């Protein structure tokens, strides 16, 4: 688990997962899109509380290793200012078979989104800005 203020080197990180026992590599890339909730987005800023984000991210990866038949996994999340099209988060998973790679990858990104102390602030083309609500805040507690 890493947090970085530089562009994520996806090739480097996926190569680091390479394993001759692996028949499958699955990844997720979260990109910055140009719209959200009816607003035209110009750029986006991520705030990360790293001491806990890294600790909790490692915990999520360890949980995935225990829950699924996978060989390796990693997650990199950006912090700071990002532009449209930038990769904000990458998750990579290797496994002997594709099903475990797919579901473990899904598990990791889903947990990252709800457990890590990371917040995004959107800056809109009309000059407004705002903190984005968490995905599950609409649900009942």
């Amino acid at each position, binding site marked *: 688990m890493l947090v970085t203020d530089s562009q994520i080197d996806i090739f480097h990180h996926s190569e680091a997962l390479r394993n001759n026992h692996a028949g499958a590599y699955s990844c997720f890339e979260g990109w910055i899109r140009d719209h959200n909730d009816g607003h035209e987005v110009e750029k986006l800023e991520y705030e990360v*509380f790293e001491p806990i984000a890294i600790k909790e991210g490692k915990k999520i990866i360890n949980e995935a290793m225990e829950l699924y038949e996978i060989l390796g996994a990693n997650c990199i999340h950006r912090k700071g200012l990002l532009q449209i099209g930038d990769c904000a988060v990458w998750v990579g998973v290797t496994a002997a078979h594709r099903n475990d790679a797919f579901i473990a990858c899904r598990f990791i990104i889903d947990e990252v*989104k709800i457990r890590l102390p990371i*917040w995004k602030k959107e800056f809109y083309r009309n000059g407004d800005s705002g*903190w984005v609500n*968490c*995905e599950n805040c609409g649900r009942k507690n």
Partner: protein
Amino acid sequence: MVKSIKVSYFALFREKVGKSSELIETDASTAIELFKELEGKHGFNQPFGHCKVAINDELAEWESDIQSGDNVLFFPPVSGG
């Protein structure tokens, strides 16, 4: 007994308070008591069930005891990814 607690705020909470941390003198004995005390003062107005608390850089339960000298961190609902 009055305790001296450093409280740290992030993202929306930091903007509402106008600073990233403050020293609070409080009678609160748990994290949730302290949060409720400050929530009204600063107008956090966020769904409580999705907020989190950490004590001295470790995620904690809302019912955790707080001690003088602790750094209590209040996290608004997260939105990573």
